[in-house]
């Protein structure tokens, strides 16, 4: 390497050994978390109940399946127009749950935002919403499927539950970010609560409300696919479940996968565009 430092103005002696890493709280937490996660992962692999599965052959078979799925899609049990219909139904499910979710969440989030109500109400609403959110969507749909009937009613209501709780959290956080002054100013003019909400809170938070809603719409499309598959909610997801788990026709799964992918990508582009536009 190089000769010792050329720079040596009168210096006091440095400690003989210098540690470069000083363990700050954040470093400790990061490392602990990493280690714990790594250990849990390894432990997980040992405990997975793999039932004598031959790993590599299965993996190879999976790749072969993926290849079939993506390279040789075909139509068998349904036609192109039925697939379009399925996708449309799924999209409609996603739209409906997003809109229902957004409307209900809007009012709930007014109650959940600390700066619009009091701390107690806010905490109660937030806790309820957190519990609702902790129940996976599919369970809501299944529970509603038994309790309230079949098909779209259960699907929409069940899926909306999750949307509502998710959006309530997102919206109320957007509301809480609003500068107190914007509310204070209208209060000082003698405006009432609803007037403040619609004239100050909503315009102020509009950008983030829209962007959260679109994000949720993207998610809801995926959820609608999954609900078709796991809870028989109809649409392309149901076709996929039948093709995959009932008919074992992976080539048809390929067709469906492409349909889903196409819509998902369109939605993503749309949502990026809209988000970019409203930010102006």
């Amino acid at each position, binding site marked *: 390497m190089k000769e010792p430092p050329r720079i040596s103005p009168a210096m006091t002696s440095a400690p003989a050994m210098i540690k470069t890493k000083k363990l700050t709280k954040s470093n400790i937490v990061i490392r602990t978390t990493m280690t714990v996660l790594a250990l849990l992962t390894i432990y997980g692999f040992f405990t997975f109940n793999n039932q004598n599965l031959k790993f590599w052959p299965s993996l190879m078979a999976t790749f072969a399946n993926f290849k079939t799925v993506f390279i040789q899609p075909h139509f068998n049990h349904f036609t192109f127009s039925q697939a379009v219909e399925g996708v449309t139904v799924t999209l409609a499910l996603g739209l409906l749950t997003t809109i229902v979710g957004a409307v209900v969440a809007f009012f709930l989030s007014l109650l959940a935002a600390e700066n619009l109500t009091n701390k107690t109400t806010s905490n109660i609403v937030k806790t309820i919403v957190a519990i609702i959110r902790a129940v996976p969507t599919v369970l809501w749909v299944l529970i509603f499927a038994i309790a309230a009937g079949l098909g779209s009613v259960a699907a929409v209501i069940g899926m909306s539950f999750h949307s509502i709780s998710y959006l309530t959290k997102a919206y109320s956080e957007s509301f809480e970010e609003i500068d107190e002054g914007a509310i204070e*100013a209208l209060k000082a003019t003698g405006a009432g609560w609803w007037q403040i909400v619609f004239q100050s809170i909503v315009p102020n938070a509009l950008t983030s409300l829209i962007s959260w809603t679109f994000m949720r719409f993207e998610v809801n499309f995926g959820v609608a696919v999954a609900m078709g598959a796991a809870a028989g909610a109809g649409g392309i997801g149901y076709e996929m479940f039948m093709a995959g788990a009932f008919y074992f026709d992976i080539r048809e799964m390929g067709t469906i996968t492409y349909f889903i992918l196409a819509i998902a990508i369109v939605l993503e582009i749309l949502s990026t565009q809209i988000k970019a536009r409203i930010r102006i």
Partner: protein
Amino acid sequence: MTTLLEMKHVSKKYGNGTVALSDVNFSVNEGEFVSVIGPSGAGKSTLLRCINKMIQATDGEVIFDSVNISGFKGRSLRKLRTKIGMIFQNYNLVERLSVIENVLHGRLGYKSMLSGSLGLFTNDEKQQAYHLLEMLGLKEQIYQRCDQLSGGQKQRVGIARALIQNPKLMLCDEPIASLDPSSAKTIMDHLKNISDSLKITVLINLHQVDIAMNYADRIIGVSKGQIVFNGAPSQLTSGDIKTIYGSDASNLMINIENHDRVKVAEK
């Protein structure tokens, strides 16, 4: 001269125990231009907000327009507030909305819940907004979004919003603290002009003593929640300044001897 506002033994103790105001007494006449000065944390903002009850005083009475408003709540409180305009350091506009929409917010106190929420304003109200904006030199910016305005322009929108309330009293909480000197002067001129020509009483928090002395008819000095000076600018001495601001008065770089009365622009 009629008394518009009277504070009697007003005290305010915050939830955390801070005593922000203790036994504050003063009165303001109609049309007066009164400036409240005092160090940071003295209680100036609290004082102002106790008047339109944005903060509920713990004790004492506030008499506005010969009515004791201390117990006002709900509808009557909202109605009271329409009579008191307020202007803020950070303008507190809805940035995404246009200038005229922000001005029209000043009318919300007069409207029903529904029409207010939907922003349905009458033609008269819009005309009034237009004229106010014209008067404040914002004719060109009427439909611009407020986030595109400069600080000085924003504050003029804030003034227009307060004026459209048809207020008897304007409360201004450090309206020029965020502005550059030239914009600050424009705003102060406008406020003085309003007070003079529209006979609106102005109560203004300032932290620049020289500006307060230039513009105000009367100065109220607040220190640690108490009123320690109340008189004409000409009566304010270095000793008073020291009482108000404590021993660091010299740090304020205030030059009381040597100030000119700035001529108020008559538009």
